[in-house]
């Protein structure tokens, strides 16, 4: 068991690929077929491109405040790849690569950050919950989803994400503790990107690792190099197997870094050292993955360029589609409050419709 070998109390971190993309633990290298590896790399690139585009659009006033994903692509993608299509994914707000893998259309992603609720109407069959902005609030929900699946003996697992900051919230604790008690098929991934806005990981908790918090809940935790797609993949795979066998939840700390600002409203230079950023840029998960792909003969420079171009084209198309998407109507703002609109709400709606008809003064 990886979780035994890498007991977080020992402080060891699981890594399969080193910074340069070399396989350092060949015996742990997952047997992924080439197509899957290629799809994974394309997804990372697409995530990076969409992310960059969103930041630009925000600056141009075409999209609202936005939380950049740069540098964290492997931490959400690896886990997503280790789950089945119909397994659940409960994300926070910085898991673009994982979402794309799970089948959330780019259109939805863009619409959401552009400020349209339609963005969170994921297609049927995509078992992904909407973004969860209130930090850690998604986690008790993930446990409930898992309980329901387990009760029906579906054999599904629920992969959830949160940040390092989220581990300080009471709802993080209650979720993990309940998952331990009910042995629900949950996989809790913490994207420890070292910062919660301006608060460093060291000020979030006095515990030396976040992975060791699992011991408070009676299940296993593991510290994983979050910029190593393969390590994230195998750690999650083991967790998913455990969950499917009814052996309960696992906590995975993905040790990663937010290369961008917290959101487009933030300026990280105010609170963190340039030097730290530079060091982490060297550990960029895309660079590492590219080296691995090249070494495996699955990628060359021209192939890589094609992938980036493809991603850019797809993104432009997605943006166009999103910008052409109809804005919500007055009725849209009302009709999803309840399954059926109560009479008093209908009255309010009609009154407001009249009011707005008269135009702004």
């Amino acid at each position, binding site marked *: 068991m990886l979780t035994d070998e890498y007991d977080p109390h020992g402080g060891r971190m699981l890594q399969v690929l080193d910074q340069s993309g070399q396989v350092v633990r060949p015996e742990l290298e997952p047997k992924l077929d080439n197509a899957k590896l290629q799809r994974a790399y394309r997804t990372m690139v697409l995530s990076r491109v969409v992310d960059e585009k969103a930041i630009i659009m925000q600056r141009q006033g075409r999209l609202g405040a936005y939380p950049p994903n740069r540098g964290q692509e492997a931490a959400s993608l690896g886990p997503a790849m280790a789950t089945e299509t119909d397994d*659940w994914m409960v994300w926070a707000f910085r898991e673009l690569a994982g979402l794309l893998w799970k089948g959330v259309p780019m259109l939805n992603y863009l619409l959401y950050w552009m400020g349209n*609720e*339609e963005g*969170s*109407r*994921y297609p*049927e069959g995509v078992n992904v*919950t*909407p973004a*969860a902005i*209130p930090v850690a*609030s998604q*986690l*008790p*929900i*993930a*446990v*409930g*989803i*898992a*309980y*329901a*699946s387990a*009760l*029906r003996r579906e054999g599904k697992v629920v992969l959830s994400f949160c940040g390092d900051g989220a581990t300080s919230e*009471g*709802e993080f604790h*209650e*979720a993990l*503790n*309940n998952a331990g*008690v*009910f042995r629900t098929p949950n996989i809790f991934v913490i994207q420890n990107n070292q910062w919660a806005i301006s608060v460093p990981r060291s000020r979030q908790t006095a515990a030396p690792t976040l992975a060791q918090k699992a011991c408070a809940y009676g299940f296993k935790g593991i510290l994983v190099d979050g910029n190593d797609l393969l390590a994230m993949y195998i750690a999650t795979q083991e967790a998913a197997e455990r969950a499917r066998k009814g052996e309960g939840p696992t906590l995975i700390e993905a040790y990663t870094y937010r290369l961008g600002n917290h959101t487009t409203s933030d300026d990280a230079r105010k609170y963190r050292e340039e030097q730290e950023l530079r060091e982490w840029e060297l550990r960029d998960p895309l660079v590492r993955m590219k080296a691995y792909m090249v070494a495996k003969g699955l990628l060359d420079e021209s192939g890589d360029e094609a992938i980036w171009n493809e991603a850019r084209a797809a993104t432009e198309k997605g943006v166009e589609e999103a910008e052409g998407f109809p804005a919500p109507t007055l009725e*849209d703002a009302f009709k*999803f*409050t*309840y*399954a059926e609109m*109560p*009479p*008093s*709400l209908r009255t309010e709606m009609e009154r407001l419709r009249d009011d707005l008809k008269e135009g702004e003064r």
Partner: protein
Amino acid sequence: MALINMVSALNSALANMLEEDPSVVVLGEDVGKDGGVFRVTDGLFNRFGAERVIDTPLAEAAIAGMAIGMAMNGLRPVAEIQFMGFSYLTLNQLISHASRMRNRSRGRFTVPMVMRMPYGAGVKALEHHSESTESLYVQIPGLKVVVPSTPRDAKGLLISAIRDPDPVVFLEPTRSYRLMKEEIEDTPFTVPIGEAKTLRSGTDVTIVGWGAMMPLVVKAAEAASAEGISCEVIDLRTLSPMDSETVVSSVKRTGRCVISQEAPRTCGVAAELIARINEEALLSLEAPVERVTAPDIIVPLPKGEQYYYLNANRLYRAVKKVAEF
């Protein structure tokens, strides 16, 4: 049919629903083996098993959050919060997720859950066990809030709540749990959510109440009637979406209204009713609407509860006051 109190009526509703619908589950602190601190879930654990009648760890946010997740994934959870005074721990989950999941996912996800809890003062309980902060919930769009006052309504409304496609906060007046018995069918039946009930017709004054206030309201109405003041009595039953229509149309006829609210005065449900009466029936008013409420103070411990909890006399005098205005 059986002659039963509200606790048994609620228990019967839960048993019916657990039986009828395999997706119904019950969860909360001590709801299992113990049958709940008020015995509302008594016997369900033995009958339906630990997987569907779930004793949870002591963590209210998780109870609410898990219920949301269960509801999003095909179950119909009925969560119990042990006392309303501990329900504030669930507000983040209720406001940020339960109430808005349908809207924020444009209908892709819904949250057909019920969150039950005893509420209210007047049973000489411990500190924090006497809260009636219903207006915290009533102001949250996307939640429904239901308060039965009789065993029959309790059963019928709870079944409606469990079958409802949206999250329902179900408030049970502790004081009424064992106050009276009614003949009630053993089989499922419903009382519609969103409809107030006129208990008694009258022409001079409309008296409105809900939950534990109803016995006092009825007593006050009887006393007033004995003195020739004809009272129309309305049990609001659902606080959200509020059936103010029934109240407003009654006030349009009577021109006078007294509202009985167990909670402190400010920003309670009574204020909302008065606002709606003002908006829709001002010209019919022959006297200011009177709200008889708890004062804006902390619920006192039992030795001081008479300064907080209303009595029928205060209501009666308010009725006289508006009648004589």
